[in-house]
C-alpha cells in the first residue's frame, strides 16, 4: 500500500476566548493518498476551514494547534519554525481561497505576483520565471496570457481572478492543494468552468486535493472521498458514492435531505434539521449532534462517539444503528 501524502492525527485547534477556550477543531484524523481528492463538507463553524488553515500553518494567533500532528510524506510539519513553514507554503502545499480579490495584492500586476511566487520557490531567473508564469496562466485557461500579465487584479472578472489564483497555487507543482470554498463566490456558470478546469489540472498534475465546501453538489462532482464535519469533528467519512448512496450518520442523512435538487424528485416539504449548530468549548464529553439528532438516546449524552467502521472504507461516529433507529449493539 502506498504511503499517504498527508496524514493528520488527532488535530485540535483552540482559540482562547475570555476565560475559556473555543475549540474549532476537535480531534480530526485523516489520511490523503497521492492524487486523491478529499471533499470536506460541513456548515459554518464546523471546523472545515480551520482544518485547512492548520495544514498550511495559517491559523491566526491567538488560535493555535493545541495537540495532534500533521505529517507531509511522513515528516511532521505542524511544529516547524515559521520560516520552514513559509517554505512549504506555495512550494509543497498550494492553496486557493474563497475570495480571490482579497487574496491578490491590488497594487501589483498579476505577472509580478506570479513571478514572485515562482522565484521564491524555484531557482529560475527573471526571464525563465516569466515564461513559466505565462505558461501557467495559459494552462489555467486565461486567453492572451502574455498580455494579461501586465493587468492588475481589478481588471479581471471573478472567474478570471480565481483562475489566476489557481495558476499561482499550482506554480511549483505542489504535492497537496488546499481549496477552501474556491467556487463559493462565483456564479454557477462560472463555477462550472472552474470545476472543469480543476478536474483537468488534477488529471494532468496528479496532486492530492483537499476541497473544502458547504455545497454538496460540488462535492458530488469532484471528490473521490468525502468527510462530513460537524462541531469540529469528522462525523462520517466514505467514498463519494457510498456516502451519498448509503449515509450512516444521522447528520449526513439529514443534510442530504435538506438540499433540494434541480432535476430529481421535487419534495413537497423540505426536510429540516431543527435547532442550531453547537458552539464547542473544551473537550466535548458528549456527541456534538445529540441536541438536533432525531434518534439520540441516553448514551449520546454521556460519551462522544468515536468513528467506527460501518462499511467498506466507510466509517461514522454514531452510537445509533441506522437500520433499527435504536442503539447499535457493539
Amino acid at each position, binding site marked *: 500500500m502506498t504511503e499517504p501524502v498527508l496524514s493528520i492525527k488527532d488535530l485540535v485547534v483552540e482559540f482562547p476566548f475570555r476565560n475559556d477556550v473555543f475549540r474549532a477543531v476537535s480531534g480530526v484524523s485523516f489520511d490523503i493518498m497521492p492524487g486523491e481528492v478529499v471533499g470536506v463538507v460541513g*456548515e459554518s463553524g464546523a471546523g472545515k476551514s480551520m482544518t485547512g488553515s492548520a495544514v498550511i500553518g495559517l491559523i491566526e494567533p491567538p488560535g493555535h494547534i493545541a495537540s495532534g500532528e500533521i505529517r507531509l510524506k511522513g515528516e511532521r510539519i505542524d511544529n516547524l519554525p515559521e520560516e520552514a513553514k513559509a517554505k512549504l507554503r506555495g512550494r509543497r502545499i498550494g492553496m486557493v481561497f474563497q475570495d480571490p480579490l482579497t487574496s491578490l495584492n491590488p497594487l501589483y500586476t498579476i505577472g509580478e505576483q506570479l513571478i514572485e511566487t515562482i522565484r521564491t520557490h524555484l531557482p529560475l531567473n527573471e526571464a525563465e520565471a516569466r515564461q513559466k508564469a505565462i505558461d501557467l496562466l495559459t494552462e489555467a485557461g486565461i486567453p492572451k496570457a502574455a498580455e494579461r500579465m501586465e493587468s492588475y487584479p481589478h481588471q479581471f472578472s471573478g472567474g478570471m481572478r480565481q483562475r489566476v489564483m489557481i495558476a499561482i497555487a499550482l506554480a511549483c507543482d505542489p504535492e497537496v492543494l488546499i481549496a477552501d470554498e474556491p467556487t463559493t463566490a462565483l456564479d*454557477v456558470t462560472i463555477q462550472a468552468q472552474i470545476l*472543469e478546469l480543476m478536474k483537468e489540472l488534477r488529471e494532468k498534475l496528479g496532486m492530492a486535493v483537499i476541497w473544502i465546501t458547504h455545497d454538496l453538489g460540488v462535492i458530488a462532482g469532484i471528490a473521490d472521498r468525502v468527510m462530513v464535519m460537524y462541531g469540529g469533528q469528522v462525523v462520517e467519512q466514505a467514498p463519494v*458514492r457510498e456516502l451519498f448512496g448509503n449515509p450512516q450518520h444521522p447528520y449526513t442523512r439529514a443534510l442530504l435531505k435538506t438540499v433540494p*435538487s434541480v*432535476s430529481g424528485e421535487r419534495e413537497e416539504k*423540505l426536510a429540516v*434539521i431543527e435547532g442550531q*449548530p453547537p458552539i464547542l468549548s473544551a473537550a466535548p464529553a458528549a456527541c456534538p449532534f445529540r441536541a438536533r439528532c432525531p434518534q439520540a438516546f441516553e448514551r449520546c449524552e454521556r460519551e462522544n462517539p468515536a468513528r467506527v467502521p460501518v462499511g467498506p472504507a466507510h466509517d461514522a461516529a454514531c452510537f445509533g444503528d441506522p437500520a433499527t433507529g435504536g442503539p447499535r449493539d457493539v
Partner: protein
Amino acid sequence: MFDTRTGRKLVEVRNLKMHFPIYAGLLRRRVGEVKAVDDVSFDIYEGETLGLVGESGCGKSTCGRAVLRLYDITSGSIWINGEEIGEAGFQRLRPLRPTMQMVFQDPQASLNPRMTVSRIISEPLDEHTRLSREEKTERVFELMDAVGLNRDFANRYPHEFSGGQRQRIGIARALALNPKFIVCDEPIAALDVSIQAQVVNLLEELQDRLGLTYLFISHDLSMVRHIADRVAVMYLGKVVELAPRDALYATPMHPYTEALLSAVPEPDPTIETRKKHILLKGDVPSPANPPQGCNFCTRCPKVMDICRKVEPAAFEVAPGHQVACHLYSETTHETAGETAAIEAQESTQQGE
C-alpha cells in the same frame, strides 16, 4: 400547484426600465447608463410565488426593488392590487406601502443593532397604524409566534440571535402590517443549508396561512424549484424565459436557461458524473455596454447571424411559457431575409 388561469393578477409589471446614469470627467457629465433592468414585463397572481433567478449583476434585485418603488423608475408601469404605482409620488405611495413589503438578504445589515427585537417588529406599526401600546405589544408577540421566535426574546438585540433567527425577525417585521405582496430578495443566501430549509418552510407555511404573494429573488436554482410556482430567468437586465416551474426545469427552451440549469451541481454523484454540463464561454458583458442584438449572443452556444443584429422579442411557445430567443420565433426565417437587407444596408453605409 397554482393555477394561473383562474387567479387574479395582484402585480402587473409592464416594460419596466431602471437605468442608472454614469457620470464621468471633470464636469461630471453623463456619459452613459447602466441598464440594470431593461424592458421587463411580468405578472404575479394572487397567492403564487414567482421565482426570479439569474446570476449576479443580471438585475434581479434591482427589479425587485423597482417593483416596490424603492427607486424612481426610468419608465414602465407597475400595478399592485389595482393601483398604478409606477408614476406615483411619495405622498401617494405612503398609504400603499403596507400592502407591499420586503425581506432582505442580509439580516445583519437590515436590522438596526441598537433596537430590540420588539422595537424592530413594531416600527412599521408605529409608522402606519394608530394602535395603543398594549395592542402593539400583543401584535409583536403574535408575530413572533407566527415566525417561530420565543416571546421571551422580545427585549433582546439582533446580535444575540443566529443568522436564521435574524431572518425570522426580518420576516416578522415584513408581516407586521398584513401585507399582500412580499419581495424576498435572496432571503436564504446568507444562511447555512440546514437553516435555509427552516426559513423556506416558514415562508411557505406563512403563504398558506396568510394567502401571501411572493416575488422570490434568488440565484439558487434548486431552492427556487422548490418554492416557486412560476419562474422568470433574467440575463443582463432582461427576462429571457418565463414559465411554470415544472415546464422550465423539465424543458428549458432558452439556451441560457439550459446552460444555467446544466451548471448547477447535483448533490448526487451518479447524476453528477453522468450529467452533461454546458460550459458557457467567458463572462457576462457589462450592462453599461450590452452587445447589439440579443444580450446573450456573445456566450450563446447556438448563436445565429440574426442574434447579433436583432433583439429577440418574447414569444409564447406554450401556454404561459415565454421565451425571448430567435430559435423559437416563427418569424426567424422571414427576418433572416430582413437581416440580409440590414447587412446590405450596413455595407453600403460603410462604403460611404
